[in-house]
């Protein structure tokens, strides 16, 4: 073999090795399954494809859990991981799923709404592939996903995403963003089918409250807040005022703009009878001018560059060396959801919801979110689902 061909052979071997090692990591991440434990309140576990058959067999299909009370009452849908790089959402959903006991009404939970996004990553930003939450029985491992669905599952992207049905022109990336594809359609791109499936749940089950859990940058004004359209404004405002007075944390209200289409807090309200609320907790990990996007940073929200920016009053939330830990974010979400339920039940006594065994803000901050997760090794196999 000539010298030229020897070089070529070595290069091919090195390229194949790099491809295999890197590819294996990404492949493992995409196919990693987190055990989800159905708690004492779960009465039915199903799939989104039950509500829209087109999703069956695709990577967009996802788990849907029903927690039905003995007494009839209001119905609430909790949607988490619409954006999988905002993982306080799935942690909050699992606190509800593993612990909630529903006495009256129905709680529906979708813990991993954009399932494809949850199996995607953002290598350009150096995202970690996994993160672990410490619990009393060891660490619980989760995939760290991305904001948008993977192009492996929905392709090709258009030059410009034309929203359905309003025909507003949005960024091409938003065609894979399940917070721009509401209310969706059965024959649209895959992510429009996902939101359509969720709209079908709301229509068929006559859902009264829809909560979409998110996280937002500290440098973005729509952070640490409840976003609500006109019809949900009263409950959102009373929730915000009550958590501030009773639990001591800020969570202001942002009106859902009428002219910005495709968002859950706008379209769910316009295309169903449900009252939508989108919850945002500050997520420093999402900010741009920060140090490395490490797992520690994701969990404790501590960053020296953000402290400097805070001193220059460039952030929209109070921020210091204590960061913005995950427990605080999950605690806020738990309390805000419980308060929305309380305010709704007060305003509509014939559609009351009674849910117990869910910790509030101070308890989650004190005990840590891992305290509320159960050990899959000590759980009956029939109660374990994989996400």
């Amino acid at each position, binding site marked *: 073999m000539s010298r*030229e061909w020897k*070089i*070529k052979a070595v*290069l*091919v071997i090195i*390229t194949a090795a790099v*491809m295999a090692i890197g*590819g294996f990591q990404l*492949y493992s991440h*995409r196919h990693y399954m987190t055990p989800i434990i159905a708690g004492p309140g779960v009465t039915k576990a199903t799939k989104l494809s039950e509500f829209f058959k087109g999703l069956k067999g695709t990577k967009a299909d996802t788990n849907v859990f029903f927690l039905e009370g003995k007494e009839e009452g209001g119905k609430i849908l909790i949607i988490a991981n619409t954006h999988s790089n905002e993982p306080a959402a799935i942690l909050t959903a699992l606190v509800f799923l593993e612990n909630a006991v529903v006495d009256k009404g129905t709680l529906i939970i979708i813990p991993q709404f954009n399932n494809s996004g949850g199996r995607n990553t953002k290598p350009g930003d150096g995202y970690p592939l996994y993160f672990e939450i410490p619990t009393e029985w060891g660490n619980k491992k989760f995939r760290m996903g991305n904001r948008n669905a993977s192009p*492996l599952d929905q392709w*090709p992207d258009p030059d410009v995403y034309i929203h359905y049905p309003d025909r507003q022109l949005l960024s091409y990336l938003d065609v894979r963003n399940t917070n721009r594809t509401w209310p969706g359609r059965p024959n649209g791109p895959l992510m429009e089918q996902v939101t359509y499936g969720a709209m079908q749940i709301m229509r068929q089950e006559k859902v009264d409250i829809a909560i979409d859990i998110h996280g937002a940058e500290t440098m973005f004004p729509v952070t640490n807040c409840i976003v609500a359209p006109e019809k949900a404004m009263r409950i959102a405002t009373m929730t915000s005022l009550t958590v501030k007075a009773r639990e001591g944390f800020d969570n202001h209200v942002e009106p859902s703009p009428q002219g910005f289409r495709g968002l859950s807090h706008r379209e769910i309200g316009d295309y169903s009878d449900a009252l939508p609320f989108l919850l945002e907790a500050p997520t420093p990990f999402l900010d741009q001018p920060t140090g490395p996007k490490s797992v520690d940073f994701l969990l404790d929200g501590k960053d020296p560059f953000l402290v400097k920016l805070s001193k220059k009053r460039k952030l929209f939330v109070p921020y210091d060396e204590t960061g913005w830990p995950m427990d605080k974010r999950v605690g806020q979400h738990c309390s805000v959801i419980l308060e929305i339920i309380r305010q709704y039940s007060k305003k509509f006594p014939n559609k009351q919801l009674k849910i117990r065994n869910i910790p509030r803000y101070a308890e989650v901050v004190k005990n840590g979110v891992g305290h509320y997760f159960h050990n899959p090794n000590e759980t009956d196999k029939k109660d374990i689902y994989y996400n």
Partner: protein
Amino acid sequence: MPVIMITYYVICVYLIGMLVWNFIREKKSVNDMILYLTVLIPLILRVFRIK
């Protein structure tokens, strides 16, 4: 499979052919050889539908 997908796969196969041909023809520049191989990666993944 929509027409656009078929066209895309055809383009991918064509580009793979071109890159492999250029890689084989390249005699001196190791840099260029590495570049041909790097550019090949996503195209191969797509054609073999490795997810």
